[in-house]
């Protein structure tokens, strides 16, 4: 079972190395990339089964006992995230075969893509704060190159902003690590949780706030999100899609982890602040989207708005609310990545994502319109799709603790999300093509693009039809998060 914890990190690493060794052979690299992503999904599923039946798993690397060595831990939340990362990784890897041009593939797109996945999985599985920093950097280093790969001018401009803000975020994270180590002499998350439990101190509060800023930049929280819509629309769609689906969510994962495990002594202050920030994130994100007329920029603002929903559940800090957050996280990763992939398919057949310049897609590609409707309506929260149950669970948990302002904000933002989605629908699919009927020849959508879009749409519908399966898993994961003694026992081998 121990090997199951290491495999989600090992498989992408080996795939990346194999892709580099395959070198000049483009076909071999493409095959290895999809194979590696598939293996990652399988390893994630194996890990999740093990955690589901056998409880929280931990492995001490190099046999150094915790808290001295590096620990890998998988509770149900980590395992769910690894499975989702594997699924998204596979879908986008297949999409990339049709989307990434040969020049970018020659300049090692595939190895970088798998290094990115390795960083993401490492961040989900580590039980040590400094190690989390290292995985963040692995992931960021790959993403820096991926966002700039190709060297088009908007890409370079977007990359400068993306890199600068993430550098500052990493620096702040490292600052906290210095302070925490100086004060408590440990960076093992479980050990920190034991040492910090129940005591309110100035050091703990200031560390918590610095971490909120550091992870908030990565997650795209208000008012730190401005780098996201300025950079995510510049690289090729496959790259934007994997960024949109996974990278901001790693920031959210880190927030959930530290604010359920370590900084829980003073929830009125810390989690109260998270609620306020979440509401502002939801509202500003969706209002920003309303002004946009380019598909990927519009969707970029929606990433921010949806992040607000996920952190709202964390801020409300009840088992039901955290469970709703986890459900929302899974739903959102699927729906959001799918919307980006569809914007890529639209860009492929129409040559642009500018809503003013395209149209008539419903006439030319009715099935693509249907495939767009599924994630779009799910994002807006229309039953019976996954987004409805995610929002329903979140609103219900907020009502249960009589927190009414977030409820009003969540419902109003849902309505504005619907507005944005109908805007894309009306402009891109419904209205007549401004290019006129003259554009006679119809470009087909490649099967390699359709396959991942269909797979994700199918999963969105399935979650919507059988929400209790995922909701049960999410509740179980939230139970583990809200009662960290199990986690601490798995890592330190003793009850706190």
């Amino acid at each position: 079972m121990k090997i199951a914890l290491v495999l989600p990190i090992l498989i992408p690493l080996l795939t990346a190395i194999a892709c580099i060794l395959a070198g000049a052979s483009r076909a071999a690299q493409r095959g290895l990339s999809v194979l590696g992503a598939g293996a990652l999904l399988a390893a994630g599923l194996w890990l999740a089964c093990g955690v589901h039946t056998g409880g929280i798993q931990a492995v001490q690397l190099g046999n150094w006992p915790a808290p001295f060595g590096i620990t890998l831990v998988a509770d149900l939340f980590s395992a769910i995230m690894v499975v989702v990362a594997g699924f998204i990784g596979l879908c986008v890897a297949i999409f990339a075969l049709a989307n990434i041009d040969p020049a970018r593939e020659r300049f090692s797109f595939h190895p970088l893509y798998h290094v990115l996945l390795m960083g993401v999985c490492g961040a989900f599985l580590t039980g040590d704060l400094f190690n989390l920093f290292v995985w963040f950097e692995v992931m960021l280093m790959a993403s820096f190159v991926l966002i700039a790969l190709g060297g088009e001018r908007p890409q370079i401009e977007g990359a400068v902003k993306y890199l600068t803000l993430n550098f500052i975020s990493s620096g702040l994270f490292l600052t906290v690590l210095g302070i925490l180590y100086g004060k408590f002499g440990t960076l093992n998350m479980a050990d920190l949780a034991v040492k910090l439990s129940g005591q309110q101190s100035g050091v703990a509060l200031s560390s918590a706030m610095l971490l909120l800023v550091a992870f908030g930049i990565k997650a795209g929280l208000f008012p730190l999100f401005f780098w996201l819509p300025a950079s995510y629309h510049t690289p090729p769609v496959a790259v934007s899609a994997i960024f949109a689906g996974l990278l901001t969510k790693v920031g959210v994962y880190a927030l959930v982890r530290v604010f359920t495990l370590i900084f829980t002594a003073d929830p009125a202050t810390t989690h109260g602040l998270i609620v306020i920030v979440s509401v502002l994130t939801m509202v500003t994100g969706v209002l920003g989207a309303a002004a946009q007329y380019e598909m990927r920029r519009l969707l970029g603002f929606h990433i921010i708005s949806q992040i607000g929903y996920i952190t709202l559940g964390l801020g409300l800090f009840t088992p039901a609310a955290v469970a709703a957050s986890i459900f929302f996280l899974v739903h959102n990763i699927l729906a959001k990545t799918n919307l980006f992939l569809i914007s890529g398919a639209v860009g492929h057949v129409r040559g642009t994502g500018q809503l003013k310049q395209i149209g008539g897609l419903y006439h030319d590609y009715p099935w693509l319109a249907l495939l767009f409707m599924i994630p779009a309506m799910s994002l807006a929260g229309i039953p019976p799709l996954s987004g409805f149950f995610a929002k329903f669970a979140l609103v219900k948990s907020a009502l249960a603790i009589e927190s009414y302002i977030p409820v009003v904000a969540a419902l109003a933002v849902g309505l504005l999300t619907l507005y944005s989605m109908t805007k894309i629908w009306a402009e891109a699919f419904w209205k007549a093509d401004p290019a006129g009927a003259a554009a006679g020849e119809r470009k087909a959508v490649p099967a390699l693009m359709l396959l991942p879009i269909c797979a994700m749409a199918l999963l969105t519908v399935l979650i919507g039809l059988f929400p209790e399966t995922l909701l049960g898993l999410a509740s179980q994961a939230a139970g583990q998060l809200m009662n960290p003694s199990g986690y601490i026992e798995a890592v330190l081998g003793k009850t706190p």
Partner: protein
Amino acid sequence: METVLAIVIGGLYAISFYLMLRRSMVKLILGLVLFSQAVNLLIFTAAGLTRAQPPILAEGAAALPAPYADPLPQALILTAIVISFGVLAFTLTLTRRAHAGLQDDDLDELGRSDRL
């Protein structure tokens, strides 16, 4: 010693943020360089300074005598230095490319792809 270093670190943070907030691309890079140095120095200082007590076991001894320098922060800093070195090298290349495209040191010119 800690007090002096604390003031130095605070000064470095302040200078680096001031430089990053300027519009010039060169000053942005200098700000990032100083920022990573300030962070490393902070980890070093926050973990406590112990003078002339290397954590080396004497021959035959089972444990170290009490005041000795903690080697872990230095390992952390070493990792952080390597990472920030890599990222800074990439930043330099990237800003050089951005500068070649813009023909300008002004960071505000990077906003073009942002306009509606």
